[in-house]
């Protein structure tokens, strides 16, 4: 017997699949965004508003949440396509499941795909789905100490949306303190405080999204 030192994470195989999927999508000019948050943080409301505000982009949604039928109807009423992804009862989406979901969805006529990941703050952060952007949503009612409780999620995200800012007057949520905590964990992270209800702050998020689009391949 030979001893082989690996020092790899257990998910190394998934990481390779994810990287391959990411490169493929970039070449095809499709932006895949992995949306992660706890339940009820305002994902569906945010996506609805984003779809309405950006009519020139062809947006589709891959739902990994278990009770997503209501969400799918809301999204489709706005003219965007959506499909339920199969997580095989797992607590997260991985690259293989994401690829299967995208194939079922069909991505020929698509500019942006949002992956609405399973609603918890631990497992989804550990698995690369192949998305080019990882976006976390933290809603004001959840509290500004979330970064202390779930550091990995904040470290692994490219952007943090602090949602429901119209509710700030009613909650003990310190926006500056929260931002400072998050930046300490992840100095590169973009923070977008916004309210999908009033529209405040939506423009900055939408500009960042547009900026994240890969260049369309020249035909």
């Amino acid at each position: 017997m030979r001893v082989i030192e690996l020092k790899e994470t257990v998910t190394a195989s998934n990481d390779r699949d994810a990287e391959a999927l990411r490169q493929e999508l970039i070449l095809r000019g499709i932006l895949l965004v992995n949306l992660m948050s706890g339940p009820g943080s305002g994902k569906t409301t945010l996506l609805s508003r984003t779809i309405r505000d950006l009519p020139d982009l062809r947006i589709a949604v891959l739902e990994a949440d278990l009770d997503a039928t209501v969400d799918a109807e809301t999204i489709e009423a706005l003219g965007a396509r959506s499909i339920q992804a199969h997580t095989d009862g797992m607590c997260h989406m991985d690259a293989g499941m994401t690829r299967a979901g995208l194939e079922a969805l069909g991505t020929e006529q698509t500019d942006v795909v949002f992956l609405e990941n399973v609603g918890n703050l631990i497992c989804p952060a550990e698995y690369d789905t192949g998305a080019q952007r990882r976006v976390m949503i933290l809603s004001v009612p959840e509290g500004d100490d979330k970064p202390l409780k779930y550091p990995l999620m904040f470290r692994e995200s490219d952007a943090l949306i602090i949602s429901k800012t119209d509710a700030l007057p009613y909650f003990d949520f310190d926006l500056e303190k929260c931002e400072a905590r998050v930046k300490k964990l992840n100095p590169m992270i973009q923070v977008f405080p916004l309210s999908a209800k009033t529209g405040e702050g939506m423009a900055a998020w939408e500009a960042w999204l547009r900026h994240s689009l890969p260049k369309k391949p020249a035909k």
Partner: protein
Amino acid sequence: MHEMGIVLHLAKTLDETAKEEHLSKIGSVTLQVGEVSGILTDYFVECWDYFKPRHPILKDSTLILETIPAVTWCDNCKRTYETVKYGRECPYCHSGETWLLKGNECIIKQIEAEEEEPDEASETDEPSSSKTE
């Protein structure tokens, strides 16, 4: 189903390693599991035993688990302490501005394995071959 997912990915990673390194059999797998990784080791071993027979290369392997102690950093007094013992609040200054330094990882440290015979490397995983008779 956290453990099941991890075992699934672990098995897949090992299958790929075996192919790359031309291994015929894996004897042991040493995993380093962080104290606060959220992985329940008993349950993890159960999942492993369930998956083993499904991956020929792992059939006779043993799983060795090593624990990585969890350490927290206090940003207020710039000291470190044992996470499991004291939790989120710093035992020195009682600040809550603390971060986990290590202890939530899950790493494949090493494996013990047998290599394929070089001259018959191309047919070692041919299930229909009867050369063992």
